[in-house]
């Protein structure tokens, strides 16, 4: 294991987000995580699209590509397929990955490419100066929706699960410890790992996540999902989550039998329970689960393809050009 400090993952480029932007905290978390985990710098590739979040690669002293808007998952797919030994990371905003890039995202998830996907959800278009995004709450007044947005929002966790995700988690920019734990788990996961990071855009959508980060609000609203642990929350852990006919329901802990409280199983083969938990909130309005919703093993696209090549070579021998061009039959003219 190589030994690094955070500065080893910093570049000489000035970080150019707005002062106070949540992106700074995430950058610090990622750099620290990589340094501490001793990830070899030269094996890391960051791919992004366009947006404030998407400038991330410029600040990571690893291999990186600042791509075009929405296409990072596709670009990263090519990177991972070419070299399955690399640690490939995708960074993008809610516009980048869910609006223009939505299709590439769900297909990368479905195929289970070995990618760690950091979705910086600030529920706004930052870089283009404040239009609503696919995660903006309905009614939001923005430059492109002065009378309030009439778009219903995606729930990124639900969407990822609907797209067959093998790993989905949610964390908060401000909670660096939590972020780090999730990064660790995602990094260890083989396959597409989607991390929705609630990220504060203090310029165009300040305090969007106050219910989860506010000193007073957070106790009532933050539901920590921990694999193997009962799902309980609240300032006094007075709330619990139970099953109610195919959906998850929040109840007073005192009102239910402790054995009825859901024990979170992130490894359940069936994604239904994870999906049900994701429906507890839509955007962080009221009690909202944080943590790993789902983490299961599935064949990893780039690895399987690599094996196919190896197997084909083993079975048929290394390709021979002469044999190839004569394979349809030949005749000779003398």
């Amino acid at each position, binding site marked *: 294991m190589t030994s690094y400090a955070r500065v080893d993952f910093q570049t000489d*480029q000035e970080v150019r987000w707005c002062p106070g932007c949540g992106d700074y905290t995430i950058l610090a978390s990622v750099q620290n995580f990589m340094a501490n985990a001793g990830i070899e710098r030269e094996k890391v590739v960051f791919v992004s699209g366009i947006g404030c979040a998407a400038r991330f690669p410029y600040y990571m002293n690893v*291999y*990186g590509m600042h791509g075009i808007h929405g*296409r990072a998952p*596709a670009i990263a797919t*090519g990177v991972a*397929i070419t070299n399955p030994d690399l640690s490939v990371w995708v960074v993008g905003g809610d516009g980048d990955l869910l609006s223009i890039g939505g299709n590439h995202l769900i297909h990368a998830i479905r195929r289970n490419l070995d990618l760690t996907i950091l979705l910086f959800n600030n529920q706004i278009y930052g870089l283009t100066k404040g239009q609503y995004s696919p995660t903006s709450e309905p009614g939001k007044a923005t430059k492109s929706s002065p009378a309030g947005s009439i778009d219903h929002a995606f729930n990124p966790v639900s969407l990822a699960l609907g797209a067959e995700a093998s790993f989905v988690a949610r964390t908060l920019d401000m909670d660096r410890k939590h972020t780090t734990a999730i990064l660790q788990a995602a990094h260890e996961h083989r396959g597409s790992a989607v991390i929705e990071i609630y990220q504060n855009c203090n310029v165009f959508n300040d305090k969007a996540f106050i219910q989860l980060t506010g000193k007073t609000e957070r106790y009532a609203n933050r539901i920590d999902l921990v694999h193997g642990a009962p799902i309980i929350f609240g300032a006094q852990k007075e709330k619990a989550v139970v099953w109610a006919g195919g959906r998850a329901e929040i109840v007073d802990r005192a009102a239910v039998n402790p054995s009825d409280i859901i024990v979170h199983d992130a490894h359940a083969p069936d994604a239904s329970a994870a999906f049900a938990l994701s429906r507890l909130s839509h955007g962080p309005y009221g009690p909202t689960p944080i943590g790993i919703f789902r983490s299961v093993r599935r064949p990893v696209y780039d690895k399987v393809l690599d094996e196919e090549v190896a197997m084909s070579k083993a079975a048929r021998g290394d*390709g021979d*050009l002469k044999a190839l061009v004569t394979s349809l*039959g030949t005749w000779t003219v003398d």
Partner: protein
Amino acid sequence: MDSDHSPVNPVTEAPGAAATNGGVRVDRADRMVIRFAGDSGDGMQLAGNRFTDAAAIFGNDLATLPTFPAEIRAPAGTLPGVSSFQIQIADWDILTPGDRPGVLVAMNPAALKVHLKDLRDGGVLIINKEAFDERNLYKAGFESNPVEDGTLSGYDLHAVPMQTLTKAAVKGTGVSGRAVLRSKNFLALGLILWMFGRDTKVTEAWVAKKFAKLEAVKNANLAALKAGYNYGITTGSFARQIEVSPADLPPGTYTNVNGNAALSWGLIAGAQLAGLPLFYASYPITPASEILHELVRHRNFGVKTFQAEDEIAAAGAALGAAFAGSLSVTGTSGPGLSLKGETISLALMTELPMVIVDVQRGGPSTGLPTKPEQSDLFLAVWGRHGESPLPVLAASSPSDAFEVAIEACRLALKYMTPVILLSDGYIATGSEPWRLPDMDALPDLAAPLASGPNAGDRFLPYLRDIETMARPWAIPGIPGLEHRVGGLEKEEVTGNVSYDPANHQLMTDVRAWKIANIANDIPDVEVDDPDGADLLVLSWGSTFSAVRAGVGNARNQGVSVAYARIRYLSPFPANMATVLSSYRQVLVPELNMGQLSRMIKAEFVTPVLSVNKVEGQPFTATEIADEIMKVMGQ
């Protein structure tokens, strides 16, 4: 059209001689165009391809033109459901599948309706007699039965009871019901093989292999094949054989290949020659899909294929693969190329090597998806936002596609640039004998791979090679070469983001210069001009074969005319200006409305004459010859 003015054989419209072979008249011909036509379900492509193989191995030169309906299976018996396969075989170096067939096989009334107008006067017409029933005649729009009403009196008609013959032949092979008649294409094929004096061995071997696991089908097809052959031998009514001798082709080993396969092999060769893994990303689209189908079968060459969710993803994945060190290719047709523009522009800005294959088809929009056209040239050269120069190459025939593919890889790697390679539906599906090049003599391809820091202990991703102006390619995995690229304007040398005005001008100039300079690294345009002509016929892409044949026709008529083809459309070869100025007139035939013409005018400010055609079909040699004669005032 013929130089010696000897009596012309109506079947080939070429000089020939007749002899007899046991009472059967044998026509000798130097070339022959045969067209198989039937319902899409009739297996005409199969029959055509088998005949092609038999002819190739016999030693004829040949060129083919398959034509499919746009629908998978249009309703049986209808005009849109007709599928055809045309082949020209010859005893000399021919270039096109021929203009008009001398032999037409029509398996049903619809096929006759669609294709009869092309059959030469006096040509051989073989029909599946029993398919000419009320229902089929109605579906094809015949008011009366052409077999009986005199419509076909100008042809050498053979009405063969193919269904009865087939049924009889396959009896006892174990196939039954609707499957029985499926073998009738083999019956027709057997008959044609007999007609051209080919034996059935090559075909039998193929059938035995192909249907090895389907014993009954195999036997039925073999039986039908022989029945057709024997029908030729035994039937008095069928009193004609045609002999086309082996072609006098340059010595060498030949194979018969279509353009999509040859192009695929060229890409594989490019990767081998560069010592890089090949990555091919594509979204299926006619007529490019077969490149994916071909490449996916060659994993043992280290080929990784990726069927993406759409064309944009395919281009994106190819770009990512290029960043990670693959020889990266993405293939598509026109609509897909329109979609890939933004990503190609990023490849250009990040200066990563990548080949974009466009197998052109009829446009605009969905257009005529199964038909060839050359109308994506502007898009390839000029169809991106911003100043986006890149090399554009075109293959001119199925076998040429192999070489051009290697060349596209060479330029992409050497100059660290996306390269667009144009093919078209005619090249893609048509086939011709290809004299195999010496595989050991193919060039080594090299890329400016970085192995360590290039500026003291720093790595500067935009520190260019002073000769090629290519930037170094640093492949992830190498310590010390960590770097970032992206779509924002880059600062020279460092590659950092730069909004500096002078830097943007500089980088724009450098990108343009790098591409323009490729003119010095590619062969000059070669002109074929034996006797100092005034007129040059300049072609690109698949139009070349019709031009060469058409020029041959014109020369046979005593006209002096030069011809050349441009393989490099951006940048143009270094001697283009000289070539253009050496002729009083330049004629540019294109399967579009004048795109190369306009490019030449834009670049060289010199007038050219255009011949344009967008009919979903290649030029015929006759059309080109006629145009030449018109220009020459003859």
